[in-house]
């Protein structure tokens, strides 16, 4: 018998589950060792970056005001560029293989850059913060296209599209959604309380209980939980390179979970307030944090990669 047939066949080792913490540590180590060399090699970027930052100074100031406003539903947005950078880092092997082509295509690829600049200027003229931030992402995409070529832009499509989540929503849209969610969550909490035996009456965003009144103001509408949960779920799925077939249902489930947690948050404060009104006021914030953390934890279960069990 040949030695080939005498060797027992082995099942291939399963691919290791990607560990985000280990990836982050490896990334930091590489930044420390290779960072200064990389920066020196790409210092020409500082030249166009300076006037671009000047043009973006006021829009970034507008964004900052929105992000740091108390109970801002878009306070997660400063983390989005870091998350987008992580997505690009996760694709570094693919990016390293893409050949660099400068000035490819019509106008050398500057069309996107001009479009981004027009959006930026329209944003300054109309004082709509959405436009200049959208312009900034388009300018970045156009710069990649101009300096590195079409193939590189395609390779960076996912991180660049994810970066669009940094763009603040127009106030009208955000206000409309907040109001709808406010009323919806108030009604939902009223139903939950009724089903649990707590008689109540709902008027707009007010829930009248025995000896306690719940005022479901804008920060309690659920928007502050919904947006970050959806963004986090999307990021985890993109990190796993999940396709639309997996992403769309996962995001829908995450949205339902976020809103359900918000309704339960309101109902739990109402239940506590009926028995101990002062305690309900004191514990309002910790209760909110608890339900928010629960929303993140449960949603992330749908976005985590499945654990591969060893035979």
């Amino acid at each position, binding site marked *: 018998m040949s030695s080939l047939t005498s060797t027992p066949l082995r099942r291939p080792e399963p691919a290791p589950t990607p560990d985000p913490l280990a990836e982050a540590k490896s990334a930091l180590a590489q930044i420390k060792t290779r960072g200064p060399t990389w920066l020196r090699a790409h210092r020409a970027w500082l*030249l166009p970056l300076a006037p671009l930052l000047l043009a973006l100074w006021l829009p970034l100031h507008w964004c900052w005001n929105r992000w740091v*406003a108390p109970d801002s539903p878009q306070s997660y947005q400063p983390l989005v560029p870091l998350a987008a950078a992580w997505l690009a880092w996760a694709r570094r092997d693919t990016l390293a293989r893409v050949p660099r082509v400068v000035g490819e295509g019509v106008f050398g690829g500057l069309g996107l850059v001009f479009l981004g600049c027009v959006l930026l200027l329209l944003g300054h003229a109309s004082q709509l913060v959405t436009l200049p931030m959208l312009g900034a992402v388009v300018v970045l995409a156009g710069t990649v296209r101009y300096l590195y070529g079409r193939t590189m832009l395609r390779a960076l499509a996912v991180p660049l599209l994810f970066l669009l989540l940094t763009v603040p929503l127009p106030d009208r849209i955000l206000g409309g959604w907040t109001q709808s969610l406010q009323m919806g969550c108030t009604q939902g909490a009223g139903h939950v309380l009724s089903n649990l035996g707590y008689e109540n009456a709902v008027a707009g965003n007010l829930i009248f209980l025995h000896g306690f009144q719940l005022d479901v103001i804008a920060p309690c509408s659920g928007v502050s939980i919904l947006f970050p949960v959806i963004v986090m779920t999307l990021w985890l799925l993109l990190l796993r390179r999940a396709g639309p077939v997996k992403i769309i249902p996962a995001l829908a489930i995450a949205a339902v979970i976020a809103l359900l947690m918000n309704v339960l948050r309101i109902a739990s404060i109402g239940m506590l307030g009926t028995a101990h009104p002062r305690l309900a006021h004191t514990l309002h914030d910790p209760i909110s944090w608890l339900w928010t953390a629960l929303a993140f934890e449960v949603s992330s279960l749908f976005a985590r990669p499945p654990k591969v069990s060893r035979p």
Partner: protein
Amino acid sequence: MKPYLTLTAIFSVTAALALTMDRRIARAGEWLPPVAQKMGNWTARETPMDKNTLAILGRPRTLARAYANGKGATVNMSVIAANGLDAYHEPAICAAGSGFQKVDEQTVPVGGVGTYTDIRMMAFRRGPQRVVMCYWTQTRDGKIESDQSFMQTQGLDRLSARRPTWAALFAGRQTCVMHVYEVIPPADKTGQAACRHVLEISRGIYDSLRRG
């Protein structure tokens, strides 16, 4: 190096245009004329806006007071020197965020011979609470905007919501935004007294700004 220089040139021109626009719009917020402390039986008490509200409005120059008539009625007012679009918060939208629904609206006259014009008066309700408010914008050259242009949602009409910033940008127009409101007491069943109070103060402010 040439591609980087090309990008630098494009971004420099963009930055120069952007900064020029910002300066013209900020200039629009430099007009905040004095408003009378006493209007008939009404005496004012300063009620400065809190930091969070000022941040939401874009940190403009403001004047905020509560006028009392000595008979228990208080009318609150704010005059905001609009230095950007953030200063023009449409009351029907902002009030809705606090759970108030607009239940009525009409136009009321202000001014006198040669200066007669209409401004908007709105009534809001949230449960048992009722508020009546007058809202309008007034430019240094006396132009009044009081319609619902900021509520436009369809196509090109949305551009009309940006009229104040276009006016500031291209015509250098300086504008103040006025809110005058009273929480209707339960005893005022029809709200007529509160409407009269709000209109009286609104007329006083309108005249002050015309003189200023």
